[in-house]
């Protein structure tokens, strides 16, 4: 979990509570509108095949500690911001103008998606 705490962070309880209410309302409404739609919805035509040609078959795992990920920071005093981060290089599958494409997406090790992949990868290696 990432949380940035500022030293002067002023917490206004009333506003935050109201914000939480509004947020859950928005989520609820969004779900509700989907649910209603679902009632009359025919089966979706789902094409979710993974375009293997777009994926390089070489291992995309990079779980070694040494990988350097460049953080984008404001110019100036950002030099010591270079951070070492372990994680997994994923491909994000997208559609552009109805064509499948992928983009690289680095997901840090502490995220469940990456963590599970790492576990699986290690298991495979042990076998």
């Amino acid at each position, binding site marked *: 979990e990432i949380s940035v705490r500022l030293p002067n962070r002023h917490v206004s309880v009333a506003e935050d509570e109201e914000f939480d209410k509004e*947020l859950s309302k928005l989520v609820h409404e969004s779900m509700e509108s989907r649910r209603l739609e679902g009632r009359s919805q025919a089966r979706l035509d789902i094409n979710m095949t*993974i375009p293997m040609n777009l994926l390089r078959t070489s291992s995309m795992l990079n779980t070694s500690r040494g990988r350097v990920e460049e953080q984008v920071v404001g110019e100036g005093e950002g030099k010591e911001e270079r951070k070492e981060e372990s994680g997994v290089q994923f491909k994000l599958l997208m559609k552009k103008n109805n064509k499948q494409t992928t983009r690289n997406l680095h997901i840090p090790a502490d995220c469940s998606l990456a963590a599970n992949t790492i576990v699986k990868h290690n298991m495979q290696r042990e076998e």
Partner: protein
Amino acid sequence: EEMYDFDSREREVDLPEHACRYCGIHSPSSVVRCIFPNCRKWFCNGRGNTSGSHIINHLVRAKHKEVSLHSDSPLGETILECYNCGCRNVFLLGFIPAKTESVVVLLCRDPCANASGLKDMNWDLSQWLPLIEDRCFLPWLVKIPTEQEQLRARQISAQQINKLEELWKSNPESTLEDLEKPGVDDEPQPVMLRYEDAYQYQNIFGPLVKLEADYDKRMKESQTQDGVVIRWDMGLNKKRVAHFLFPKADNELRLVPGDELRLRYNGDASHPWQCVGHVIKLTNEEVALELRNNQGVPVDQTHGFSVDFVWKSTSFDRMQAAMKTFAVDETSVSGYIYHRLLGHDVESQTLRPTLPKRFSAPGLPELNHSQVFAVKTVLQKSLTLIQGPPGTGKTVTSASIVYQLVQQNQGQVLVCAPSNVAVDQLTEKIHASGLKVVRLCAKSREAVNSPVEFLTLHYQVRHLDTTDKSELHKLQQLKDEQGELSSADEKRYKSLKRGAERDVLMNADVICCTCVGAGDPRLSNLRFRQVLIDESTQATEPECLIPLILGAKQVILVGDHCQLGPVIMCKKAAKAGLSQSLFERLVILGIKPIRLQVQYRMHPCLSEFPSNTFYEGTLQNGERFRERKLRGAGVTINERLYKGIDFPWPVPNKPMFFYYCLGQEEISASGTSYLNRTEATTCEKIVTHFLKSGVNPSQIGVITPYEGQRAYIVNYMQRTGSLRPQLYKEIEVASVDSFQGREKDFIILSCVRSNEHQGIGFLNDPRRLNVALTRSRYGLVILGNPKVLSKQPLWNNLLVHFKENETLVEGPLNNLKQSMVQFSKPKKFFP
């Protein structure tokens, strides 16, 4: 290849366009753009001083839901959307990994990432990870700005964010600095009792109407629905009709027939399509939308449509125009009416007409003594207020007045009411008296079903059957067949139609329309000396003014200021007094309304408390039998009550009780309303008992002040009720406000609120209580917590009333016992 039009707005110095509009942070990997059409602002994914990140704060506050990433961000310029269905609502999106490859994909929660939606074995649905976690975007998708960045950025508090978002609704380019400027937070000037002149009147009301208009616009335009599924149909007039579900949010937008919606289809990127249409029918949450234009409608598509509300300023424009006319045009109303409306002290004006021998009108029920008195008084005065408590025959009285006014031959009479339903009812009654009446509808409502369609202007024009109109007929037919006419024909058609409309209008004794409808250009050349406004206590003052400024010399306002007033959405405007009706102000100014005193609706035991509390004990109970006979029902109250309906009323001849429910109030799922499960359970039991004892579902109404409880009861009854779900479905469950003006044989009122420390909310308003108590003809059951409700003086009185009548009960429904519950001390004295 992205298709955005970048508008060159004036930006704050030094900051790039993509800087967070709250704090100024602008590193491309930390910012996201809101792509709501009129917004397109950038925000960062940092929390700053608030609990949610700035972008989430914005999306929630503005109710926007779609975003795109910066072109210099790791993923490049990308709109976040469901890979499968294209849904762009970020509150529904999440990542799903492939089972074997290091591939992820964005999918919407329902239906695409749902086990039943996606049967593809390659993907691991169990790992769905929402895009928004702990009130910010996943930090590896949109970077959280570093601590240093956040410290260097502009510090903005949650309150400032709220204010800024408020400001953006009226001026999207406002900045944080604008918050400091004077005027932003100023309260509007409140309404007064008396005004020096019509200019002062306009200066007070103009800004209030503007506030309400701005609020209405913002609210309606934020109601975009995505992922709408369409069922296509074709109307008899060969116009395309789209059917779809339009879920209603808590107490916000209420669609009404005639509203304009824009339907969009973005599925085909090369041919995006959109078209505006009118709502012609509403059943539950299904909308029927008649499209304006049949061309290019993607009828082969059913999914992936969006719907926006098209806000129209017409009604507000007409109010403003009426106030202006009132001020600048000396002939807009008579001198007497002018001074009266402004609250000036003028000698009451008495007219000396020849009074008729009979005050009742042909074709309408015989009037009772207080109704006759009302009609007689109206004819002799230039300004009369008539107060019609529940069930006292307001509509018949109004129709009889109109009949007598027409007999005086002073020109055409204009009859208005704020709501279309009320206008239709009155039109029907006036027609029954044999007068020539025309019902003028807004053009957008012409396709809406109405019980008085044959009296509408558009119907009458279409069915004029004289030979000199035959050219119009031919052109009309051609237009119906082809959808459109050549421009020359169209011109000719329009001018012929205008002529025909004028003829029909001129030929009428009475013209009926809504108050706003009175501002219709088709009436602009007509003058009306006599104007009657029914339900005038539900209209705002500027709304009432619209029919009056067409030359009023004799004005009759009918209503009941002891029932609910006009609905004002903007709190500021309501607080400043826009929610006070003209009728109410005139009462405060000392004009005594004539009260209709005989009620025909309620069983005597049900009218007693409202009469004593709201009408100084003046309500008398009419003889129902005669009234029923007249309406063709021919059923007496006793027959209805005792034959076949076996219900355990605690006191046999008093069909009412207050049922002690010790339930907990809860905040509803939406976070904006309340519900009470115990009361819902009890409500279902009572409803089931009624149904089992032979009561028809249409005879039962359930009233509750809270939308959360309304939805819960509807759901609970259908799910849990022991009888067929369809039976429960036919029972109307609605808010107090939407039951105003209507009645049911049996009413169950669920009060919901049950807490020791907070107030009782909506129930505090005596006028709302009055409406709630006066909806039932034969039986009333109130579900509530007497301990809590008795803290409020008025409710305390009501509880004492039930106790004294031995109808305050508890225990199981088949063994009700008088409750010995102790009341709380009321907080302050009720006048």
